[in-house]
């Protein structure tokens, strides 16, 4: 009999392969086994069985290669013998302040002539990816950069508002590298790697010099020097800014540096391209499979190293302040190929966002933290006032000073409205849960600028020799100053809410904003897959359990301009004789098939519900059960619910259109599939971490006053998760954190 023609039933095939019928059905549902329905009954051809077995074998072979490499690393590592974390963090020896310089001195270099022979792929053109691409190209590497937007200038970093930190001490207020380092470690609630944070503080000053040299128009004072503002969790003014558009200006700076290299032919830019798979050859990251989002075609791209700069995964919550397209796919795909994922549950919920207004809302809008420099946060003291406000019988401006509860100033007198984000968010939730929320959903508090308007107005009137007692004049002058400082934010607020924040206080509520968790990296920013790096928000390294304001831009640019381009040389120095990496290999073929199989599954699926339906459901589970406060019961529940959602998704999702065409629903389906898997790991991580720290608040672990209770004895580690196949549970590895330069203390902002 011609094997190609023989058709099997599910029963026969189960017997033939010695597995259960259920397993076969599952593989059919997931598209791994191709089947044709004849008279409503599944029929499977020998060809499709062969290709199923072959693909699996090839994948197993690739996996084995990765594992061999992991094992080699692990065995050469003493730590492993003591049964500790299987990877070295490669933190250099020596005193904290010398580590980075010593390391740079000892690192292997690649000569300029040899750099020309080396290709590097950078996935992402946000601050991290754009700065890395530009600098790598300046150094002489051949760079290929990818982004899913239509231009690299539109990466999500563009939306950052408030500012970027640097230990310049231009204000002479006692700032220093050490203080920035200390604030960041403390702000992160002692869950970050000390040496990485110190390096970040060291290079922070170079960033400002570099950006000014590129023509980034930072705000300046009348003397023509750079101006600064304050952000939460610190007592100095070290934040550089460009009105409310700092991210835009920094990204356009990095974009211009990229453009210079595109013009020189050193960067090849692939916009509207989405990375779908990592390709590993001989245990090393050697390329990616990307989909051209216009034609829908899959492309193979090879390189000697792959850098992931794909940003954060806040959109796992559906509603967040992230751009609509921000996603976890690139990070998740490398995770499934061997990169550990660290601290997935560490999420930042930002205290000052515009509250949710309706069912059809697609995203949330941040009101920059810089507003807390001048805005005071409050709710009414009396419930009857809350009631009257909701019934529109009272306006917030009618409420007497003495009837207002400035709860942050009350609870944290030392830092007041400028406590770190996690603290401010929880305090807002506490007041709203207690019934003091000031909008119809009960989830809003006031951010009030009236005192600042009067203060600035008086200053102005005084310095101009005008009547300080003339209230309307003072208000007018004050509003002008507020407009100069925050004009675009106020405008944005008014456009969205239709209320004028110069006249009535803003209403705000916490929203998902940033993810501290991400791909685990060593001191060189390399993941646990050799040759694969992760930078910017995509990695986990510098912010511990809570990020301080204006530190993400700093980290993205530090990684991209000043760290990765040098540390990557250490790895690439052994690649100077490798030559071009071919894309006509088995490994590329398998990865491409994998990507194709997943895409075809969605197109062929006979579901009826749009992708967003599932994304919203996932978001609801995450917000309700893994949000601002978490507990064991609900986390367990979340895991079960997400598992159920996953089944429902694969069975019922509907993706219209064609594979080889522009098809946004198809791209979204792939992203949501990865978000669902990440969501489960997220909940698992939150469940395992039986302590409260930073943004991770476990209700079981709090002080009498409701403050977070850390457990340094048992949880002073980075949770690094290893993917063990979609059928098995992931494995937790613990990288112990060692604090030499900062004393482990309980965090207080009182």
């Amino acid at each position, binding site marked *: 009999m011609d094997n190609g023609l023989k058709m099997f039933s599910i029963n026969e095939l189960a017997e033939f392969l010695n597995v259960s019928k259920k397993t076969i059905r599952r593989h059919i549902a997931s598209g791994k086994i191709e089947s044709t329905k004849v008279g409503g009954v599944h029929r499977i051809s020998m060809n499709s069985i062969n290709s199923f077995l072959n693909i699996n074998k090839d994948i197993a072979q690739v996996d084995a290669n990765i594992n061999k490499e992991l094992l080699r690393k692990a065995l050469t590592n003493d730590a492993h013998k003591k049964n500790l974390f299987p990877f070295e963090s490669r933190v250099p020896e020596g005193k904290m302040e010398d580590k980075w310089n010593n390391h740079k001195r000892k690192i292997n270099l690649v000569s300029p002539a040899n750099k020309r022979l080396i290709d590097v792929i950078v996935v992402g053109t946000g601050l991290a990816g754009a700065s890395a691409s530009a600098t790598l190209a300046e150094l002489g590497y051949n760079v290929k950069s990818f982004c899913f937007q239509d231009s690299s200038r539109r990466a999500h970093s563009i939306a950052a508002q408030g500012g970027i930190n640097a230990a310049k001490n231009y204000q002479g207020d006692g700032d220093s590298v050490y203080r920035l380092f200390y604030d960041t470690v403390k702000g992160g609630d002692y869950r970050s790697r000390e040496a990485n944070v110190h390096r970040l503080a060291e290079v922070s000053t170079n960033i400002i010099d570099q950006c000014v040299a590129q023509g980034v128009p930072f705000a300046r004072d009348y003397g023509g020097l750079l101006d600064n503002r304050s952000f939460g969790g610190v007592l100095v003014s070290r934040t550089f800014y460009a009105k409310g558009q700092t991210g835009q200006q920094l990204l356009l700076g990095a974009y211009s540096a990229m453009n210079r290299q595109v013009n020189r032919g050193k960067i090849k830019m692939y916009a509207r391209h989405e990375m779908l798979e990592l390709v590993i050859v001989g245990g090393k990251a050697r390329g990616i499979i990307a989909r051209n989002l216009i034609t829908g075609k899959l492309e193979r791209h090879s390189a000697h190293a792959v850098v992931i700069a794909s940003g954060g995964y806040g959109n796992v919550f559906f509603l967040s302040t992230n751009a609509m397209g921000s996603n976890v796919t690139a990070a998740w795909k490398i995770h499934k190929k061997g990169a550990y994922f660290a601290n997935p549950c560490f999420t930042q919920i930002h205290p000052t966002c515009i509250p949710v207004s309706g069912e059809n809302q697609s995203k949330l809008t941040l009101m920059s933290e810089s507003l807390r420099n001048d805005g005071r946060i409050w709710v009414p003291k009396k419930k009857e006032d809350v009631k009257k406000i909701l019934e529109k019988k009272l306006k917030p401006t009618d409420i007497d000073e003495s009837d207002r509860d400035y709860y942050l100033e009350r609870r944290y007198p030392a830092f007041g409205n400028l406590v770190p984000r996690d603290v401010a968010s929880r305090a807002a939730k506490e007041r709203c849960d207690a019934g003091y929320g000031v909008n119809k959903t009960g989830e809003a508090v006031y951010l009030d600028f009236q005192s600042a308007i009067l203060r600035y107005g008086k200053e102005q009137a005084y310095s101009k020799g005008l009547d300080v007692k003339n209230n309307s004049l003072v208000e007018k002058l004050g509003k002008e100053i507020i407009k100069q400082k925050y004009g675009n934010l106020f405008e944005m607020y008014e456009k*969205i809410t239709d209320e004028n924040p110069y006249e009535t206080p803003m209403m705000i509520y916490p929203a998902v904003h940033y993810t501290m968790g991400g791909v685990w990296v060593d001191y060189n920013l390399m993941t646990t897959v050799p040759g694969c790096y992760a930078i910017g928000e995509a990695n986990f390294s510098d912010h511990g359990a809570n990020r301080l304001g204006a530190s993400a831009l700093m980290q993205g640019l530090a990684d991209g301009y*000043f760290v990765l381009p040098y540390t990557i040389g250490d790895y690439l120095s052994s690649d100077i004789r490798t030559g071009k990496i071919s894309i006509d290999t088995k490994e590329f073929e398998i990865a491409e098939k994998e990507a194709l199989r997943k895409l075809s599954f969605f197109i062929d699926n006979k579901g009826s519900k749009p992708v967003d339906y599932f994304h919203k459901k996932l978001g609801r589970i995450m917000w309700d059960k893994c949000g601002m406060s978490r507990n064991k019961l609900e986390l367990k529940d979340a895991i079960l619910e997400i598992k159920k959602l996953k089944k429902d998704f694969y069975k019922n999702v509907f993706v219209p259109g064609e594979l080889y065409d*522009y098809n946004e629903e198809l791209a979204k389906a792939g992203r949501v599939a990865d978000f669902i898997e990440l969501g489960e790991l997220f909940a698992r991580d939150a469940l395992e971490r039986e302590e409260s720290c930073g943004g991770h608040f476990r209700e079981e672990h709090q002080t009498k006053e409701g403050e977070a209770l850390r457990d340094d004895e048992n949880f002073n580690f980075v949770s690094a998760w290893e993917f063990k196949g979609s059928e098995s549970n992931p494995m937790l590895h613990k990288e112990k954190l060692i604090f030499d330069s900062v004393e482990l203390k309980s965090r207080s902002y009182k």
Partner: protein
Amino acid sequence: MKLNLKIWRQKNKDSKGKVHDYELDGVEEDMSFLEMLDFLNNKLLNEGQEPVAFDHDCREGICGSCSLFINGVAHGPERGTTTCQLHMRKFKDGETVYVEPFRAKAFPVIKDLIVDRSSFDRIQQAGAYISVNTSGNTQDANTIPIPKHNADEAFNAATCIGCGACVASCKNSSAMLFTSAKVSQFSLLPQGQVERESRVLNMVNQMDLEGFGACTNTGACEAQCPKGISVKNIARMNREYLLASVKK
């Protein structure tokens, strides 16, 4: 509220497009314009149809992804506002709303409302940068004070989001406002002086190569720019260009 939508649908760059009619009920005032399109798309998807394709990402008026010609105006009726920041409270119940892509020879349609604006990137690549390497020993940022006025002007020019509304609004499809904003930013800063002349010549040259039209000073670009980029920048660029051409 209920809207009569007339939306441009086009399968791909090679096919012919046409306006399709959609009646959409249940639109809420608090929705943004793009949320209204999401709402329509959700309805289409539930009926098993292909959704309308449009570009968007930040939905905060800063990335420049969103576009759309709404009732004949780039980014719709509200001044100084991108489509993603436009809210449905600006429309009336029962209104007919035309939604079309940004049109220009240098912006070919990719699908439905999505156009190819890569010509903008190429203009920037031609010279919109300051040639300084990342070395870690660049001079201290405060070595050269910059008068606040110049810094602010440079900043204002630099707030262009590169959406293309200026081109779409211009009867000549000119990209002068976009190009001049970048030229101005650098010409106002001390760091931008060294390459001042080559920059303007190269960028203007690329602009012409891409097939953008000439400027006839109608001012439509400034009027419809969601970020209020001023036509003063065009005057500044013209001066820069003239000077550079003379010195060449």
